[in-house]
């Protein structure tokens, strides 16, 4: 397992994305999966950067590991911020018209749509959001 620990600020997003996509590309993963993971990483990381420690900032740890047969990427985002379970967020109703559609809730919805498994755990004062993506 590899680990990246850095400050949870939007400016650090490219570093997290690179940490993950570089190893996907090494494994000849399809561009489609790489793009899906970019989106998932952005949505998770921006959430942590925007809310976990607001108005302060804090650290986030990203853990990555790979499974073989079937090949899968496992990621965990760990922060020590306010307890927050994004999976409790109600999915946006994608059948509503423009005026009824709400502006929020899209991020977590996009995460769920693009991963195969997702789990949230609050442990030892930490939020742990983990995902699995087969590729």
């Amino acid at each position, binding site marked *: 397992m590899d680990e990246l620990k850095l400050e949870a600020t*939007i*400016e650090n*997003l490219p570093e997290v994305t690179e940490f993950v996509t570089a190893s996907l590309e090494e494994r000849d993963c399809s561009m*489609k999966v790489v*793009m899906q993971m*970019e*989106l998932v990483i*952005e*949505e998770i990381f*921006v959430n942590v950067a925007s809310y976990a420690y607001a108005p302060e900032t804090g650290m986030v740890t990203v853990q990555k590991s790979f499974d073989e047969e079937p090949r899968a990427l496992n990621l965990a985002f760990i922060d020590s911020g306010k307890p927050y379970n994004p999976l409790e967020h109600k999915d*946006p109703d*994608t*059948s*509503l*018209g*423009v*005026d009824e*559609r709400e*502006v*929020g809730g*899209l*991020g977590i*919805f*996009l995460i769920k*749509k693009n991963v195969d498994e997702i789990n949230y755990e609050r442990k030892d004062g930490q939020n742990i959001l983990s995902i699995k993506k087969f590729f």
Partner: protein
Amino acid sequence: MEITKELNGTTLTLIISGRLDASNAQELTSTLNSSLDGVKDLIFDFTNLKYVASAGLRALLMAQKRMNKQGSMKICHVDETVMEVLEMTGFADLMTIEP
């Protein structure tokens, strides 16, 4: 991300290229807020837009809500990856998208 504005009478075309994400969606929102007065038809040209995340979708939704009140909005030349995100979120049904 780069935004190129072309105003032709009351038709505003915004050519968005690159990536529309959390780091720059606010820039699009500001451009929209300062450019839409008097505009009846808003056209987004996504030929060179390669990536959109939820922050970008929020900016598009706000634009659509406003244009419903004052005219029309359409999105043209959508890249395959961007189209998948628009479809996944139901935005493809909500907005006028032309090939």
